């Protein structure tokens, strides 16, 4: 350990990399690229969040006050696209870049040049997507699910830009996934067998296979939209022998694994943080691995539960209902394992642990509403209402994003070599926790009360609850600037962090590397116990 830190403690002197902007443009280093992914993701989180603020401001009162319905639809669409493809997915790729080589005892990612490219095409993809908002006729306004024929015959002229942007995002994701798989399969230190891999590595390994399986399907869907709109094909047009529901099958065959792509790495993060602050090994490591794999497998046979109202045969509805209900079994196993890990531990509650506990509780609430949505006869009532909006924001915001926050707090000392301000971290946590529930919990009631989603105006009985939801939204949005300030403060003037700032933390990155981690993680493989 000490030899490694001696050699690399001041890498700038013998590492003749370009400086300034070109260092970042040309870098092939997994840590530089990981940092860029994370900052990019945060920037997109703010942009997508600003759109959510426009949505919530318009919905603060009944009637149309601020925006036109067409612009409102663009906001809901682009908010969804930015948050899914710009905020959550790049954040996980950034974490994988930073952590996977350190966790498996590798010097870097296996394909560093591709790594550079997979990041650097992303800003172009999102520039194209955002630029389309300023075109005549506006940007995409057909929902992030872009159902045909709304996205084909009836879409704005800018749809080709949307398609191109999605293609670039997909290429970026696939390259990132290939890199993760190749790295994990080839660059593990001797003795780091598969069943010794930290769960974050395991969950990302499985996620990467999901990405490679479904991103081409998304690319196919957008290409078919492109040719239907511009080249006279009729994939989704009954008049030419096509079927609009075919689009939904293709989209959700991508879309359902996609939602697990956005949550499996979270499971890995929580499985690292909960044992660390319980000072107790993770309960049921191997069942966690099997549960992750079975969730991934099941994710391919549940897609049509997004489509119960499209008029499927009843046999198909039953099949998808049963498979969907089945997913709650491995997911339940995970939650039980985390609770069992905490049980009889020696708990402390630093910010990463606070976010992890909030994740377990709130993600489980999202899981409960997911189970309710799986019951097909009742889904007819929930479908396309705010109940669904509440459900997927519980699993994506208090699920995926809370886990990303937890990871950022947990590994920030390792990345920056400095400690963050614990008081500010707790302030950020409590502000986020309270406001996010004011924001999303009442949405369950709106949905059950009968408010459809994706509407810019609503009937008068929904006014009070919508006002409360909007206030929660503004508060949650503002709370995230505490995090930004905290990270900048940590990097500039935080206390120097020891190699292992968390008493119960385990793993190569804590035991075998100093803080901050050296530019090249392991040039000689560590010894695995």
């Amino acid at each position, binding site marked *: 350990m000490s030899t490694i830190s001696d050699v690399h403690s001041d890498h700038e002197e013998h590492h003749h990399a370009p400086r300034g902007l070109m260092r970042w443009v040309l870098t092939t280093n997994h840590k530089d690229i990981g940092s860029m992914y994370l900052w990019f993701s945060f920037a997109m989180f703010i942009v997508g969040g600003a759109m959510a603020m426009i949505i919530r401001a318009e919905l603060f*009162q009944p009637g*149309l*006050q601020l925006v*036109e*319905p067409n612009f409102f*639809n663009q906001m809901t669409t682009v908010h969804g696209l930015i948050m899914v493809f710009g905020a959550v997915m790049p954040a996980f790729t950034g974490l994988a870049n930073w952590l996977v080589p350190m966790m498996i005892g590798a010097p870097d990612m296996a394909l560093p040049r591709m790594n550079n490219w997979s990041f650097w095409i992303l800003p172009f993809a999102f520039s194209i997507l955002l630029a389309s908002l300023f075109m005549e*006729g*506006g940007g995409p*306004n057909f929902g992030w699910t872009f*159902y045909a024929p*709304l996205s084909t*015959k*009836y879409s*704005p*002229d800018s749809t080709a830009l949307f398609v191109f942007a999605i293609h670039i995002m997909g290429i970026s994701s696939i390259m990132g996934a290939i890199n993760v798989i190749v790295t994990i399969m080839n660059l593990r230190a001797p003795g780091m067998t598969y069943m010794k891999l930290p769960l974050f590595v395991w969950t990302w390994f499985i996620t990467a296979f999901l990405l490679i399986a479904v991103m081409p399907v998304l690319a196919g869907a957008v290409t078919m939209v492109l040719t239907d709109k511009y080249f006279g094909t009729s994939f989704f047009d009954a008049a030419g022998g096509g079927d*609009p529901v075919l689009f939904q099958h293709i989209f959700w065959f991508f879309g359902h694994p996609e939602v697990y792509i956005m949550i499996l790495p979270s499971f890995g993060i929580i499985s690292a943080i909960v044992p660390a602050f*319980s*000072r*107790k*090994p993770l309960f*049921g490591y191997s*069942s966690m691995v099997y549960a992750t794999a079975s969730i991934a497998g099941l994710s391919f046979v549940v897609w049509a539960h997004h489509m119960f*109202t*499209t*008029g499927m045969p009843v046999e198909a509805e*039953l099949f998808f209902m049963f498979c969907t*209900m089945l997913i709650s079994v491995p997911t339940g*196993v995970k939650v*039980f394992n985390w609770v069992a890990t905490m*049980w*009889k*531990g*020696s*708990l402390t509650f630093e910010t990463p642990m606070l976010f992890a*506990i909030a994740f377990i*509780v709130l993600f*489980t*609430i999202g899981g*409960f509403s997911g189970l*309710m949505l799986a*019951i*097909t*006869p*009742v889904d007819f*009532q929930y479908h*396309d*209402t705010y109940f669904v909006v509440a459900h997927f924001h519980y699993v994506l915001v208090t699920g995926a994003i809370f886990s990303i926050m937890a990871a950022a707090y947990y590994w920030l000392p390792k990345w920056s070599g400095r400690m963050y301000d614990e008081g500010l971290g707790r302030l950020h946590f409590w502000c986020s926790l309270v406001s996010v529930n004011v924001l999303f919990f009442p949405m369950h*009631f709106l949905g*059950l*009360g*009968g408010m*459809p989603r*994706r*509407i*810019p*105006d609503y*009937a*008068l*009985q929904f*006014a009070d609850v919508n006002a409360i939801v909007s206030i929660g939204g503004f508060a949650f949005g503002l709370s995230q600037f505490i995090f930004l300030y905290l990270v900048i403060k940590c990097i500039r003037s935080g206390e120097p962090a020891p190699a292992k700032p968390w008493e119960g933390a385990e793993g190569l990155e804590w035991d075998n590397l100093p803080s901050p981690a050296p530019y090249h993680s392991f040039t000689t493989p560590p010894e695995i116990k």
Partner: protein
Amino acid sequence: MGRWIQLLVLTFFSPHLFAQEMSFNLRPGVTAISEQVYGLHMTIFYICCAIGVLVFGAMFWSIYHHRKSKGAVPAQFHESTKVEIIWTIIPFIILIGMAIPATKTLLAMEDPSDADITIQVTGSQWKWHYKYFDQDLEFYSVMASDWDEVNGKLEKRKNYLLEVDHPLVLPIGKKVRFLMTSEDVIHSWWVPDFAVKKDANPGFINEAWTIIDKPGIYRGQCAELCGKDHGFMPIVVIAKPQAEYDAWLAEKEAAYLAKQAQELELVAMTMQQDELMSLGEKVYEKSCAACHQVNGLGLPGVFPALKDSPIALGDVTKHIEVVVNGEPGTAMQAFGKQLGLKELAAVITYERNAWGNDTGDLVQAKDVVAVQNAAQ
């Protein structure tokens, strides 16, 4: 700051907000199926609550008692195959218990056989069309709330956004089958009190059914994003006892036939410019302004302008054709069926003479009939 407080106070205390109570839970509805659905909803909700109490209970017990500050020493156990098997099997059994009643209800919901009445429901941007299969009766149903209410120029009335000009009227106690389809994008016909939500897919027909137990007025909305005015596409169903329903049906049919006869007479009539323009403006605001806008400027890049447009200034016959038959492959609908001859003539006249278009052309009912006949 003062403005914000004012806005907050206004939001929470303005009287119209209390006009209608919001239900915080699913409503049991007014059909046997909707009551079963409500029962399933409550069962699965209570199951989730019970699991939540157990899991979160154990977790918060641990958070309270097993904290380091209380001197807790960590145990080192980290696996137990027995426990893992137990907490895999128990949820599985609960799920089977839940799946059985859900399957029963689903099978009942998906059986539209032996219907007494069939209604064809057709969605289009942004209105519903109802056709009574066994009668000579069909009509469009459009939101009745005023756009000035939406834009804050008029006080919002009690059923704001949930009222239509021509509601669907159904008898109680009869099995009503719905055939859903669409003329453009996908819409979804949803009335919460019936637990019926079914997508209307263009080019395909979906089935759904209901038997309404209680007379009353039931309101719903389009549930699938269908473009700009998706939020302004309500559904109103009035359920009446059989006798009242029959009376309504007879009256409606008579009116429908009388209107068709009147249409024929119109062909011979000539209307003056003032009459055409004032009627045309009304029709335009109701049927055309959603896309082409009240000022005729459209939404650039989405919906074309009519002011100075080649169609409104060009050949009259071509203009009538576009309005009557629509423009395939675009959002322009065929209005030949949606509007009467007089209304069509008036609105086309209006489009050719409003906003400085000033062609001076007057379109009469007979011109419209000529185009309609040519198309057949």
